[in-house]
């Protein structure tokens, strides 16, 4: 079912994803150990190690390797991005936010540990992401790590994830939401962290400024692509297939791409975003770019 036409035949995307996700999972497991107070760390681990596709950390590692770095240089950053992603899911699922009971096929964090612990576990993951990036990144000059810290901070705060979430919350039930507005939400809510993953990988892997910026643009396109596909899946798939509540956008009266432009046009838009993204990779060594090309295709054609 995987489309491979743009990758080299020698590159096996499935094996690549499985191997990379495994090393990310090992690194996450080691990074957040069970210590006192046990409950908070259990709650952190419950959501962090709940599976998930590890798209962000794999993007981070792949970008690092594309610019000539090794996996280990980017692994703490890859873990940090996944910690932030997890933290934002824990807080988004809270009753006072999206009020979700199910995530990645399991009860949400606050359903298991209570709202208070869920808030704290999210906060703890947020701060630990920075600590981990700063302390555990080895073999990279401090100036690049500092740059990564700044990039991470910017992508999750009121110029990034949080901005997207705020505008999203205040768009529910609005009748006059246009494409530009929708794009703002997704560029911040979804694309910002994917962009951050790719940019962190390319910074820590030793990329030049122009390489970093090309990869940033690539990531922004696939970030938007990720959301367009998410919106399409929300209306075309069941909760069981998705591992989370389906049709939620409709129930919540959220604006989505299918609602604004219809399913067919949304699919065409997704195709275009994927093409635009991959154009950014043209100047790179194509063999080394194979994982990112395959990741873009995976995001475009995934079924959940």
């Amino acid at each position, binding site marked *: 079912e995987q489309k491979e036409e743009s990758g080299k035949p020698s590159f096996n995307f499935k094996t690549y994803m499985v191997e990379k996700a495994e090393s990310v999972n090992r690194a996450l497991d080691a990074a957040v150990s069970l210590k006192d107070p046990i409950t908070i760390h259990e709650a952190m681990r419950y959501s962090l190690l709940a599976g998930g596709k590890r798209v962000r950390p794999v993007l981070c590692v792949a970008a690092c390797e594309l610019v000539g770095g090794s996996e280990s240089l980017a692994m703490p950053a890859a873990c940090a991005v996944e910690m932030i992603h997890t933290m934002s899911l824990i807080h988004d699922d809270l009753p006072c936010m999206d009020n979700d009971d199910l995530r990645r096929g399991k009860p949400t964090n606050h359903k298991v540990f209570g709202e208070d612990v869920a808030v704290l576990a999210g906060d703890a993951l947020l701060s630990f992401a920075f600590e981990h990036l700063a*302390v555990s990144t080895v073999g990279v000059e401090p100036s690049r790590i500092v740059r990564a810290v700044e990039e*991470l901070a910017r992508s999750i*705060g009121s110029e990034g994830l949080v901005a997207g979430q705020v505008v999203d919350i*205040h768009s529910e039930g609005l009748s006059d939401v246009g494409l530009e507005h929708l794009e703002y939400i997704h560029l911040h809510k979804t694309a910002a962290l994917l962009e951050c993953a790719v940019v962190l990988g390319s910074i820590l892997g030793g990329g030049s400024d122009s390489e970093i910026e090309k990869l940033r643009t690539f990531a922004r396109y696939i970030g938007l692509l990720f959301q367009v596909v998410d919106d399409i899946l929300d209306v075309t798939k069941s909760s069981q297939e998705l591992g989370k509540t389906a049709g939620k956008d409709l129930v919540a009266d959220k604006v989505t791409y299918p609602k604004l432009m219809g399913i067919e046009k949304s699919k065409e838009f997704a195709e275009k975003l994927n093409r635009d993204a991959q154009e950014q990779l043209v100047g790179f060594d194509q063999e080394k770019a194979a994982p990112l090309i395959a990741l873009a295709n995976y995001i475009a054609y995934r079924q959940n």
Partner: protein
Amino acid sequence: TRSKSTRFDLKTYWTTLIADINHKLNEAVPVRYPELIYESMRYSVLADGAKRASPVMCVAACELFGGDRLAAFPTACALEMVHAASLIHDDLPCMDDDPSRRGQPSNHTVYGEDMAILAGDALFPLGFQHIVSNTPSDLVPEARLLRVITEIARTVGSTGMAAGQFLDLEGGPNAVEFVQEKKFGEMGECSAVCGGLLAGAKDEEVDRLRRYGRAVGVLYQVVDDILEEKKNGKDENEKKEKKGKSYVKVYGVEKAIEVAEKLRSQAKQELDGFEKYGDGVVPLHSFVDYAVDRSFSL
């Protein structure tokens, strides 16, 4: 004593720094789109009457080692941002359920729970961002900045203030020392340590600042608890019941005063190790005395 001989004017020192810090925080959290989140962040960070104890201690510790206060300001502001973030989340209905903070409605009372959560989530990273974007690179090498980031992240994290808040909510028996150390000692410790790190203090000096800052942080809280008890009397204290633990509640006023004395001498003893810096250590001494005497109001 030292404070008599040098005629150091803590009130002026402190109020001058409060004005500087407030000015810088005002610039650091501008209002832009989406306005509501910035307003919510500003509401807590720029709340009237904030003593800015953490930033002032950070600046004082930096200056002790000959550091420029310009090197310390971004970190000083960041300490207020992450502290505000913690307090916003602590006040939430699912946590301490506190409708007010420092006599003002708490953040979620004004902006709603969802905005309060997001304001906290935005203030933590803004703190880190502010440090790395605004610390003059000619004054502080990048490796030091990374140690400062690490210190602050650990302080607010799962073994620091978040741990304190968790144990406070859980309400286990006799955990008051631990809860107070985590909720109040950690912030004092972090403030002093960051100042030292920025100025390039040696490891053993940083350790000394660590013990000093922790003692002063807890000392403030213990004295606050004692003053609260004296002001309100026993009846009024009922409503403090669910709001965190206090030494006074657990051990009574007598014992709390004893604890305060012990913390005071601990903190002073640590400062004796900085004698070679001469008068530079005076501000740090005066924080300890002020914590106990409250000789003026800010």
